[in-house]
């Protein structure tokens, strides 16, 4: 559904994307994980038509975004990481204008507005001004709006950033149900647990480069099964083991030769991310 080939973006001297290549399958929930400034939003902005690419190629649903950008955009829904709704207009007005932009007839706009606002639990507020909504409600409105024209691909750029844990969980449920309805979802996040919970496959992006791409389970397996954490001068350092016995022995041995707290636990996606992006503390 989405194909990136050596995608590049340059802002002056700075290379924000240094040749990213990947494929996203139809119906897949694909997570793009990386720290701030990794190039996640840049990728999504290029794919959604907000930013021009500097090199490489991107194809959405068989359409090259440079060759036929309008046909490519017709297939996409976009939820950006900041609120981009008209505060002075009503929820229904925001939905209606989006539907018009995508050439939807009046009856379909009315039906989709009614159904989607109900879907995101904002049906009762359809006539209210957007300014009266909370941050989480605005995010749900933006998701409903992005689904208005029934896109094949939904781009979600940090959809839960800055939201409370309960609202984040609620949005996770919503995202899962959108995928279950058949949409391909391209999600960027810097919340590792979000990627782990939601994604079929995860790509680690760092400094504009793709460091790894696989299922969350496979990425974790590349590091090991078990981790032993121990404090160091540079922060918490972890050693990884495939065998539980070896990990337990290492933890006991470390505890016998030095003081400090040692933890034996299962490897997480965060371990895989830190190791594969080279961000874990250096060896003692």
């Amino acid at each position, binding site marked *: 559904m989405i194909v990136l080939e050596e995608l590049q973006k340059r802002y002056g001297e700075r290379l924000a994307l240094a040749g990213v290549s990947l494929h996203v399958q139809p119906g897949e929930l694909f997570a793009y994980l990386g720290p701030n400034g990794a190039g996640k939003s840049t990728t999504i902005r290029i794919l959604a*038509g*907000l930013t021009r690419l500097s090199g490489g190629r991107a194809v959405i649903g068989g359409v090259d975004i440079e060759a036929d950008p309008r046909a490519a*955009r017709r297939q996409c829904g976009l939820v*950006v990481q900041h*609120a981009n*709704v*008209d*505060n002075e207009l009503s929820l229904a007005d925001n939905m209606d204008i989006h539907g*018009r932009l995508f*050439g939807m007839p009046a009856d379909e706009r009315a039906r989709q507005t009614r159904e989607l606002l109900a879907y995101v639990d904002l049906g009762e507020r359809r006539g209210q001004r957007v300014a009266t909504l909370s941050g989480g409600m605005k995010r749900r409105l933006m998701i409903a709006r992005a689904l208005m024209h029934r896109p094949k691909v939904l781009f979600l750029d940090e959809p839960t950033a800055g939201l409370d844990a309960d609202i984040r969980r609620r949005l996770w449920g919503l995202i899962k149900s959108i995928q279950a309805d058949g949409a391909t979802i391209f999600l960027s996040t810097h919340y590792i647990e979000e990627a782990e919970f939601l994604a079929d496959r995860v790509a680690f992006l760092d400094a504009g480069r793709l460091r790894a791409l696989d299922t969350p389970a496979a990425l974790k397996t590349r590091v090991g099964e078990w981790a032993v954490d121990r404090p160091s001068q540079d922060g918490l350092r972890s050693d990884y083991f495939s065998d539980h016995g070896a990990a337990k022995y290492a933890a006991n041995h470390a505890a016998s030769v030095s003081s400090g707290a040692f933890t034996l636990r299962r490897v997480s996606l965060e371990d895989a991310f830190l190791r594969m992006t080279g961000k874990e503390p250096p060896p003692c």
Partner: protein
Amino acid sequence: MLNGWNGWNVWNVWNGWNGFVAVYLRETRLLRRRFFRHLASMMVPPLLYLVAFGTAMGSHSPLPGRSYLEFLLPGLVAMTSMTQAYGIAGEINVARFYLHVFEEFQASPIGSAAYVLGEVCAGVTRAALGVAAILAIAFVFSIGVRVDACLLLAAALNAAAFASLGVFLAMIVKSHADQALLVSFVITPMSFLGGTLFPVENLPGWAQTLVYLLPLTHAADALRRASLGLPADPANFALLAAATALFFILALSSVDHARD
């Protein structure tokens, strides 16, 4: 993003029309939400000019047999249609840099022409409200003004020219601050020098040459001739139409520059 026309076909025409309506409706719905605030704010400057200059100038009219207010009023129509139409740039600026709603247009499959036309028509609508407000003030103050097709056409062309200029400049600025600078350096000087408050003929020769290059000078002249019942000068309309076409084309070509 908002790319040019990719050939004439049914989908493009339908989508272009829908895109235009969406952009125009968004602006007019916002205008409707703030209607009375906006109307009040657009009536303040012309009222101040009428009261201040009308009182200060008294019987010193540049037109024999006519009051200064009769001279001034068409100038205020020109000024108001310009500032209100250009005001669409401020709305676009807010949509781009504050609300980020402009991203909605960028991520949609509409063309640049639909976007620019929607914004220009919204600017002209704002200008029409402003002109109607001034004409209502003229009626209340019993200021003689003749409203005919030439006056309406001149006001509409002036508004279309400055709305197009507003869209063009709103696309190329990089921040709110740039937008404010443009108002200070382009719109405010034109408001005072474009034959709105005093006859251009009173300026030195070299200044007249410069001032006649400004579209507002021709709008003020066309409006004044219509308002006073004098024969229209086709050159004024031709120049306003040319300015509208030029600014509209510049706006079309600049929409894509608004992308990162």
